[in-house]
């Protein structure tokens, strides 16, 4: 295809956009809204996933030892625990440390532990165990249980599980929303292009009669759709870009311990995806209307 022909296509496409004015604006806006929702969904989903990963890496197993455990075997026990595959770190927690930790966790409800002061510390000594990947937790738990001085093994997966459910929910809901909005976008773009086709029907008819190929006739309309899609995508990408940068700044300043994805290169990739999708949506919407209105 010659460069000059592309120049012609672009000029014709631009003409169509100008002639349609408000409809073009409406089309680009729906693209922008759909893609912005998609961007929000992605931002949320990716961050939830990130949080889950971070928390998963923090999951620990607590192995409570027999009440009569003799601390002279402490090092040997730690070595045994460390030898279990996938165990990353092991820490010995004395029953005194355990009680202190519990007090701290309970805070104002610490008087519940008043009995402990009278009767004596009810907690046994324990091992805190970190695992390289949460999928290995069951295996490690199993192995810990088989160590004879271990009485009971406790592990926490609640938060992770809840986060996983949440991020699944966000993903499903977000994608459903995006699918709906995309359908609406296709609809309005195809209607916009149909207006252009209608405004040019006389010209198109004559083009056909003097021997223009269908490809030649279609390209300006496809480009018109793609440009509308791209314009909407640019707006969505810009909003997502500046919005997220601002958000990251606020979070890192205000809540530094909350793990979120850094702005770059995430935003660069996100923008690429948005622009590509916008163009595809636009061209597809246009193709949809051409299929019906440009019969030979």
């Amino acid at each position, binding site marked *: 295809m*010659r460069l*000059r*022909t592309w120049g*012609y296509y672009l000029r014709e496409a631009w003409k169509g956009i100008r002639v349609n004015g408000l409809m073009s604006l409406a089309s680009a806006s729906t693209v922008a809204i759909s893609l912005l929702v998609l961007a929000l969904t992605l931002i949320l989903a990716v961050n939830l996933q990130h949080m889950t990963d971070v928390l998963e890496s923090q999951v620990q197993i607590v192995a409570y030892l027999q009440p009569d455990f003799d601390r002279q075997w402490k090092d040997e026990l730690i070595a045994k625990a460390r030898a279990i595959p996938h165990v990353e770190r092991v820490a010995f927690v004395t029953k005194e440390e355990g009680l202190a930790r519990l007090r701290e966790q309970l805070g104002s409800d610490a008087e519940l532990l008043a009995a402990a002061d009278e009767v004596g510390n009810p907690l046994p000594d324990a091992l805190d165990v970190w695992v390289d990947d949460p999928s290995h937790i069951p295996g490690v738990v199993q192995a810990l249980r088989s160590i004879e001085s271990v009485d009971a093994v406790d592990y926490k997966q609640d938060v992770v599980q809840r986060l996983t459910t949440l991020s699944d929910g966000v993903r499903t809901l977000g994608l459903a929303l995006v699918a709906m909005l995309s359908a609406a976008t296709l609809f309005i773009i195809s209607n916009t292009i149909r207006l252009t086709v209608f405004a040019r029907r*006389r*010209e198109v*008819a*004559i*083009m*056909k*009669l*003097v*021997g*223009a*190929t*269908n490809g*030649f*006739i279609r390209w300006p309309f496809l480009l018109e759709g793609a440009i509308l899609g791209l314009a909407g995508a640019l707006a969505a990408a810009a909003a997502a870009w500046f919005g997220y940068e601002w958000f990251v700044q606020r979070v890192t300043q205000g809540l530094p311990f909350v793990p979120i994805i850094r702005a770059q290169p995430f935003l660069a990739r996100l923008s690429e995806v948005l622009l590509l999708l916008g163009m595809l949506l636009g061209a597809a919407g246009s193709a949809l209307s051409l299929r019906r209105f440009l019969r*030979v």
Partner: protein
Amino acid sequence: MAGTITLIGVSKVYPSRRPALVDVNVHIDKGEFVFLTGSSGAGKTTFMRLLYCEERATEGQIIVNGRDLNRIRPRHIPYLRRQIGVVFQDYRLLPERTIWENVAFPLVVTEWSRREIERRVPAVLELVGLRDHAQSLPRELSGGEQQRAALARAIALNPSILLADEPTGNLDPANANAIMDLMEEINRMGTTVVVATHAETIVNRMRRRVVHLHAGRVVSDEDPGRYRHEA
């Protein structure tokens, strides 16, 4: 092959109508000049539409430029049409474009280079006598001039066949004769010309082959200049 038209047993029935063409057998050779006559509704426009694939024959075989139109692939139709110039009964000029742009239109949409276009358009406008109107809009021209513009557009791609549907319909005799002279000139350059008309004075004056249609049938096919053609 280029410039020849053959219809064998062609019929055309529009949905829920009586047939517009019935068992038409006509052969037109390269370089011929043929009138297609008949009263309103006889089937002249339908005859022409079949030749450039705006309509498909219900029955029979049509061969144009060596191509069997029953078997032509949709994507080849544009290339067939580039070989057939058509002057429509209602001109069909683009009202928002200048005469130059209208005449250049077939060249633009078939991807001629700018240089080729700038050489071809003035030559064609010169031929039809519209050089001074290149920058006018169609509505600024008289009926005869618009007809010339339509003719210029039809021959811009230098087709091997020129189809003209009532090219003198709304013109006074002087203008009508001028248009017909142009047609003859184009024909002299080797283009096959088919003119649909019911203007008898012109047909009689020109003494050319006449295919006469009545209610969709060819009722006579005579060539005063040569031997009688087979119907």
